């Protein structure tokens, strides 16, 4: 009775979200705004962090010369068109990812410490603890200016079961962003769901009446539940109240987000863009995630983003560029030239994808310039030599002029062992976020700025 048939060419995404529940917030969103948001008079400044795993083959990464007149090494070659928008940074360190007496687990530590600048507590589950990540520090201060305080993307879903790197909870290895020192922010892996976070889901758009009703009901349930919670809270003793406070906080948090949703209507999908196509390959997945980030910045849905291209310790093969060995295996090359060459190919491949993202940002005009001019985007890894899990002398790039504050087009060598977090403080400056400290920062990286250039 059933038959075989040839797969039709799909040009639209069909129900990709089915396997993964849509974020519940969707149902709270008011119906799509009819008009797009009016163009802002000044252009917002954006900041983003893009993470690649397992270090790099540093010999093919670090340019020989310092200053503006350097030659692009093998890995960075694909960025040729963008060298005037780039700063190559050499000498930075992610100290908190170092062992510091905790033994194995360098990959989990690398991810957990990269944006937090905090040495994560070694635990397989209970009492996880790192620190608030730089993007969330920014989101806490300026996140209320946009519809989404921040956007967290990843191509790797957290591990479903089992243990992660050497006694570390999987929470460390698969999350870059931390909302508080005990609460990682799970990144969105599904491009369709991420797209719907920006533009609302097609289901809801289908019937304004249904969507309106659903939002009303959700709000009413939330009101009821909060009322219930307050009544209960009044009856509790102090000790129970401390515990129960988590519930109240969660309700208020949700309420605030609904209010924000009302304040910032869902933007229209920019001309020429459409809901993401079904992806089949890793490369398509990366491309889609980069595109989501570009759209988020373009529509000013958020100004803060993180993207985990692959989780640290990833052992993904790269058959599209002819590499069948696992990335992690190759990173432990033991100085085998063939493995190092393959590793460099993977590094270069990731840089190629990043370069396309920069193309995309530059294609979006803003005033006399483009979106990249108003952005500061850090790209890099928390390890340099993956074979030794070395957290020093990291491969780091900074793209974008930060709205004219950053002097680009240079290869900067900073003092050895300068913490990564010093760069973050400067990045936060460029988007107007004031901080005294990010993780283990010891100051700012003044060399970045035009004035000191």
């Amino acid at each position: 009775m059933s038959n075989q048939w040839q797969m039709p060419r799909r040009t639209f995404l069909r129900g990709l979200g089915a396997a993964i529940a849509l974020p519940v917030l969707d149902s709270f969103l008011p119906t799509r705004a009819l008009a797009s948001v009016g163009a802002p008079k000044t252009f917002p400044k954006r900041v983003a962090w893009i993470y690649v795993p397992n270090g790099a083959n540093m010999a093919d990464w670090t340019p020989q010369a310092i200053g503006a007149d350097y030659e692009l090494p093998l890995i960075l070659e694909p960025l040729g068109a963008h060298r005037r928008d780039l700063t190559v940074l050499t000498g930075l360190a992610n100290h908190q990812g170092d062992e510091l007496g905790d033994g194995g687990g360098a990959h989990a530590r690398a991810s957990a410490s990269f944006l937090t600048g905090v040495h994560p507590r070694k635990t397989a589950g209970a009492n996880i603890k790192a620190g608030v990540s730089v993007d969330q520090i920014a989101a806490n201060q300026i996140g209320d200016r946009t519809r989404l305080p921040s956007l967290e993307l990843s191509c790797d879903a957290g591990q479903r079961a089992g243990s992660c790197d050497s006694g570390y909870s999987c929470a460390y290895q698969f999350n870059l962003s931390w909302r508080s020192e005990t609460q990682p922010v799970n990144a969105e892996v599904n491009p369709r769901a991420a797209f719907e976070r920006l533009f609302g889901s097609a289901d809801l758009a289908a019937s304004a009446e249904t969507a309106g009703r659903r939002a009303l009901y959700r709000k009413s349930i939330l009101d009821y539940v909060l009322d219930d919670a307050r009544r209960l809270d009044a009856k509790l003793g102090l000790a129970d109240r401390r515990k129960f406070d988590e519930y109240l906080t969660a309700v208020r948090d949700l309420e605030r987000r609904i209010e924000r949703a009302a304040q910032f209507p869902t933007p229209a999908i920019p001309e020429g863009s459409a809901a993401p196509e079904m992806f089949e390959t890793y490369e398509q997945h990366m491309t889609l995630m980069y595109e989501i980030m570009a759209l988020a910045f373009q529509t000013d849905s958020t100004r803060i983003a993180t993207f985990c291209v692959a989780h640290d310790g990833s052992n993904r093969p790269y058959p599209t560029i002819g590499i069948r060995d696992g990335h992690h295996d190759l990173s432990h090359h033991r100085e085998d030239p063939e493995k190092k060459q393959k590793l460099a190919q993977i590094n270069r491949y990731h840089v190629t994808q990043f370069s396309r993202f920069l193309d995309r940002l530059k294609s979006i005009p803003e005033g006399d310039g483009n979106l990249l001019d108003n952005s500061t985007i850090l790209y890099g890894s928390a390890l340099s030599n993956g074979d030794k899990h070395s957290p020093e002398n990291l491969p780091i790039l900074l793209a974008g002029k930060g709205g004219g504050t950053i002097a680009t087009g240079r290869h900067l060598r900073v003092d050895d062992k300068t913490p990564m977090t010093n760069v973050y403080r400067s990045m936060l400056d460029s988007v107007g976020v004031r901080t005294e400290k990010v993780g283990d920062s010891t100051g700012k990286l003044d060399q970045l700025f035009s004035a000191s250039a």
Partner: protein
Amino acid sequence: MTMLALGGALAAAEVPVVAPTSIYEHEVKPLLETYCYECHGDGAHKGDVTLDEIQTSADIAADRETWETVLHHVRTREMPPEDADVMPSDMEREAITGWIERELLHFDAAHPDPGRVTLRRLNRAEYNATIRDLIGTDFKPANDFPPDDSGYGFDNVGDALSLPPVLLEKYLAAADKILDQAIVTDPIRSSVRHIPASLADIGFNAIGDRGDGWVHLISLEEDDASVELSLPAGDYLFRVHAFATKVGGAVKGQGSEQPIVFTDDPGPTKLALMLNDSFVQDFVVGTDEARPNVYETRMGISAGPQRFRASVARKRGTPEDETYMLNGRIGHQQPGIVFVKWLEIEGPLPAATRRTRADTLTLAGDGALTPAKELVLKNGGEAALFFTTDRATEVILRAQAYARQAGAEPARMELRVDGKPVKTFEVLAPAALQPIPGQRIFSPNLLVARPCVYELRTQISAGRHEFSAAFLNHTTDPAATNPNLRDRQLVVQHLEISDLSSSVLIPEKPTILATLFNDAAGAAADSSSGIVGRKKLAPVNETILARKILTRFMRRAWRRPVQPGEVERLISLYALARKTGDGFDASVKLAMKAVIGSPNFLFLGNTHAASRQVVVPDIPAASASGETIAIAARPLDEIALASRLSYFLWSSMPDDELLALAEHEQLRAQLPAQVRRMLKSPKAHALVENFAGQWLQIRSLENFQPDRKLFPDFDLSLRNAMQRETESFFEYVLREDRPLTDFITADYTFVNARLAKFYGLPGTYDDEFQHVSLASTPRRGVLTHGSVLTLTSNPTRTSPVKRGKWVLENLLGTPPPPPPANVPELDDKSRQLSGTLRQQMEQHRKNPTCASCHARMDPIGFCLENFDAIGAWRERDGADAIDATGKLGPAHAFSGAAELTTLLAKYRRQDFLHCVTEKMLTYALGRGPEYYDRPAIDKIIRSLEENEDRFSVLILGVVQSFPFQMERADSDAPDSVPVNQPGSTVASVQP
């Protein structure tokens, strides 16, 4: 500091306030000086323990934990260490322990402290079970929730359970999902779910994505790509995009180093589309990678979670297919590798699909219903269902069935319409066990009967019809050596009709909710009409009806009587939906969502009575500092007691009987009878999953993957069998009310054929787990279960240290402290230590930092060395003969597991009973054990001793214990000593 003052205050009643007792000065201190100060006094503080700094009784109370440890170690002769120069006599030991006990434990006899149980949310297991019992739906909504943190070894400890904002979102989403599925009010729309294989669940051993989204599945390992979806009932299309490679054979690194060479035509590669464990249809998969095909089948599904699977099973089911593969697996391996890119599920299709489970079918002829609610047909047996249609239509008739094999020919099933034969099928049996002597059996799928779906499509006329499945060829073969091959039977699981010309059915409410709606309708009719017995005639005021339904629902959901006014707030939600234009059911449903999103549903604790008056007056006591502190206790009110009891024994809400008793304050009076009733209920299986699963740690077995090259026998089926063994064993001790010491010494266990073979037990076994004697084997108690031996091993080798630590932690309750920092790990490739593992560990123990703890752990672990890293018996470890000798304390030498368990039961029985009691109490209360629980624990142990250590005595003892029955009158009273950090983990030791 009140914490210190409390201990001091209470101690003050017994001993002089400021100075330590003269007993201490004259009798105890000299002993401590002689035997302890060398390491723990006069400036020495080995293991961070100092014993010479006591000035007042309050100091002792403040450092209660240390003194509890001292008490324990002196009593069990762990201290002073074996190699000490001088040893105390028994009388001297008695002097020390007696003093500590008096000092520590006698302070509060008059006013015991029941402790504080923190308000806590339901954990995942409890949420699922509660929804099951409240709504009557079977899907497990909490499986989407983030994992629960645990403390003190259990995931129901309030201090460790947190509620991040994301969980609130999940709660609200779950409320929507649960009730939208239970009360369907909107027309069901068809949709397509598309799942890339890289996001699907991939089988136990499968390799996964080759890098471009194509996932490998190989037949040797019976790989599958699957996805579990919770969908409305109906007919669905299941599609898979796939191609196969042409040549067969295992590939290096995929379970076997030796490729299989086919001498003849390897034949086609088939992909089976399955629903859960039922085979629906298979396809020969095309081998053109450039033109992969889509394979599609149609299946009827019932509501709730369903697993859609694309599987490359081995070929088997008929005697010719019982060929053995490498690793002893059964069935022909299919040639080639199937690559899958995505799965797609579309539906529900326009068709009214109605499924009738076997237990509600009509049986004609010879047959019987099994406990699993399957209908077993024998000679001439026929299972039928009746249906009526008001017009001529086309239907798909389906039967899901499998066979039990005997004799040469396969079982035949005839599908009949109105008694007339329409189509006959040969029904396959799951592969049989032990067909050929001398062959090993290690098949993952022997355990699971593989039913298939058999269907026909036909036209029927208007009117009433009968659809039936009949068994045609029953036979027996009593002489068959394999017990699975002696009686040919047809086992029917369900019959199903899909009416293709009718639209998708709106599913009925689950029975629990349907009853709730109907009963309330009856009651509402009564009250609105005022005429008893004429319910149907009077028009019902809808708001009154809604109020009735919601009041009843709330009482069950919140596990307490509804307070005046509470339902009014809910009615406003109902009214809102009504006003917005929703129907009655949809409007009630909205209010119900609020009920299960409410903290009154989500939180456990004495929430409703928290504000009531303190009835028992505080009894003040004067402390050393003159502060007035007392911990007054009062009985937990019965409503809260009902929940505490049902979440302890069932991990779920109280049923109507419990709640009604509590409402009438009769529960406490009937506790023993209620506990017995509850333990008999199938819901008490929660104790096995949740208590035993965490106490014995078998829950974590699923995270273990021993090295596949070294342990090719270890696969999903063996792992499952191991888990089932320990669960069955625990359930047996529980249900048969066996002595607790059976956990240590039992010379029996439960095995199926797979595990019996693995353990090397003589005799024939089938797929079912059965009670077997271990008397003639070296195995005794849970310590020699494959589960425990596996989860205390490293992937490549045994770990005597982990095994010893497991015994200390889980059987004796004397966990070793975490290893000191910066001790080099015992690397497998390490060149620093040499010799056998035992010799290496002995060198390790020369380091005095390590010696004191490892001397306790290692001997226990080494006596289990005859069991390898997955628990199989062995005589040698590599080239070395096993030395399984050891000593329990200085006095008792033993060799091997059987002798060890005998010694443990004889000399450490008290410790064991204490350990189990403490763990059970922790689980029952949802809080960590405290020093003031000691009298309650001792009392339970005493009654265990008087009653042959029976399991029920433990359960009842816990239920009747002071901390379980009482609560602090002032819930904010401070704890009297610093509490341990919940969930602190002890870093694992790498030997």
